[in-house]
């Protein structure tokens, strides 16, 4: 094990896969000498050269469209889009090209590409640079959707994503970039898709959360434990494929489900999780399924407003208590 930040873990995953496979390359805005807007690509351009770490013009549509073309012709692109709020720009390329190409061609076309994107609020970046947009992509068949909550998973999941033969949406929470964690040293350490992790065992209530909300939920669980309330916290790690078995088993045990997400509530992936349980685990439930989410509003700028907007550990504690 070594200590790495989430950002370093991501960089290491890319570096290792690029060492191993010369068809892997990176492209995006300011991923070269600038090192990426959040410093994730760092020194990779020095190590692998400008051909394999490509600074692009401001051209999200072409970045993703060309990633599709590169992936179809033998390369394995890792494309970075600077903010999840910009994903509307190359949405057609994701939706109509990357996601559907295999199906439309009757299984002929292989599109092994990873789209890395910083997600979420908390840095005062306001309405167009703070969004959570993963729900859109869970609604697009043909994509896989990944969202690591810690450094080890960041590395292991990104390596799996790069090796996958399908388009993978890889969300990274901005606030997590500097979070440091233990990461296995083994170069072959990978985290498989579709396997949730029970981050904390408990018997009174199940919380499911992704990204930064995993930390928030664990913090809330800790506080609740002091009051004798036992909360189980599940991190699905990948939204598509989604490990519903682990979740259903937990809900069977606890009888209560709280879904925590910084997404705006309506139409969120939190809603999807709720629907899965309402369809396949209804009789386990002793209480309504609660979603603690952001309100249905854009992300405000002012720090006071942004903090009011985002669900925090206290909100989680309150919600849990209401359910008991």
């Amino acid at each position: 094990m070594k200590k790495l930040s989430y950002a370093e873990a991501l960089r290491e995953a890319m570096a290792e896969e690029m060492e191993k496979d010369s068809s892997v390359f990176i492209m995006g805005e300011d991923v070269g000498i600038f090192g990426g807007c959040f410093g994730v690509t760092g020194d990779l351009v020095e190590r692998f050269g400008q051909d394999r770490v490509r600074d692009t013009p401001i051209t999200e549509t072409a970045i993703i469209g060309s990633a599709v073309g590169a992936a179809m012709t033998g390369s394995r692109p890792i494309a970075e889009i600077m903010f999840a709020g910009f994903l509307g720009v190359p949405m057609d390329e994701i939706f109509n090209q990357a996601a559907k190409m295999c199906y439309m061609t009757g299984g002929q076309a292989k599109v092994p590409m990873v789209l890395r994107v910083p997600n979420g609020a908390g840095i005062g970046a306001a309405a167009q640079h703070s969004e959570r947009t993963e729900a859109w992509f869970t609604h697009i068949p043909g994509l896989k959707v990944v969202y690591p909550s810690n450094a080890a998973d960041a590395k292991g999941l990104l390596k799996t994503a790069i090796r996958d033969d399908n388009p993978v949406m890889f969300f990274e929470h901005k606030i997590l970039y500097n979070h440091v964690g233990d990461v296995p040293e083994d170069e072959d350490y990978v985290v498989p898709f579709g396997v949730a992790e029970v981050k904390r065992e408990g018997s009174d209530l199940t919380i499911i959360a992704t990204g930064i909300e995993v930390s928030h939920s664990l913090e809330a669980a800790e506080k609740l434990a002091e009051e004798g309330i036992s909360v189980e916290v599940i991190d699905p790690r990948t939204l598509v494929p989604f490990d519903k078995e682990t979740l259903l088993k937990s809900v069977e045990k606890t009888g209560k489900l709280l879904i925590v997400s910084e997404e705006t509530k309506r139409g969120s992936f939190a809603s999807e999780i709720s629907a899965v349980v309402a369809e396949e685990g209804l009789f386990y439930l002793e209480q309504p399924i609660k979603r603690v989410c952001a309100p249905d509003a854009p992300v405000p700028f002012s720090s006071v407003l942004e903090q009011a907007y985002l669900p925090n550990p206290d909100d989680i504690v309150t919600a849990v208590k209401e359910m008991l």
Partner: protein
Amino acid sequence: MKESKEELVKLLEDMLVIREFETKVQKHFAEGEIPGFVHLYLGEEAVAVGACSALKEDDFITSTHRGHGHLLARGGDLKKMMAEIFGKATGYNKGKGGSMHIADVSLGILGANGIVGAGLPIAAGSGISAQILDKDSVTICFFGDGASNRGTFHEAINMASVWDLPVVFVCENNLYGISMPQYTNDHRKGQNIQDVSDRAVAYGISGVTVDGNDVMAVNEAVVEAVKKARSGGGPSLIECKTYRHRGHFEGDPTVYRSDEEVERWKEKDPIDRFVKILKDQEILDDEGYKELRNEVKGRVEEALQFAQESPEPDPSEVTTDVYYGGAE
């Protein structure tokens, strides 16, 4: 450039294949045998054939909603194509794609595409692969005059020019995007310039306009651009002025253009013109042409029969191929 007798006759043959194939599709669409939308390539044969004949085996093309001609010119299998257009299990895409998505990826065809202008960034990406994988393959990107007004045109060609990607952008200017004329003197037009190739200036690359109904002219321009691309010289933009004989899709009442205009263009039919040249140069005689046509007709007829007799896909196929290799 094509010069030998065989090469020239092959150009004609390729155009005839498209002509006969599309005529068949037209007929059987009208008879209700083909579902969905069908956009025919009739009248534009010289572009696909002139361009694709400039490529070698491990090159690539991207195609459009009007893609049958591109696939055929690239050597697509008539049976699998017709079966796909009929939505049959034996089709190229197992009946999942249909006319608008028909492709043979093994021939380097990176998809027909139902999204106008979507092929341009994909072609750029194919060009990136050539650099990453250190191959000398070139990609031809077909797109329409209408597509040249989309942001993808701008972003993809800009990217290709910045990185000297080996891509030849071939604009099929058939004067309309559905009902919208490419250029007029009033406000109803796709763009405010007569020649799409003028846009090359915006990217510092070369742009030319050629007679898209002259298969030799198309071939000559594309051969040169391919050579340049293959040797690291970067992308080019080639505009081929042509015309679609049919409506935008089958069923289009074409209220937006006059019968006279259609007739004027039919007089410039790319096949008739090329046949005349071959005859004038005594490369082909009436008999030979007839024979060639019959032979082509026979192949298309066979393809039709294959399609008609092929089985429908099994309903269980609905959920396969969502992910490559099967698993989620």
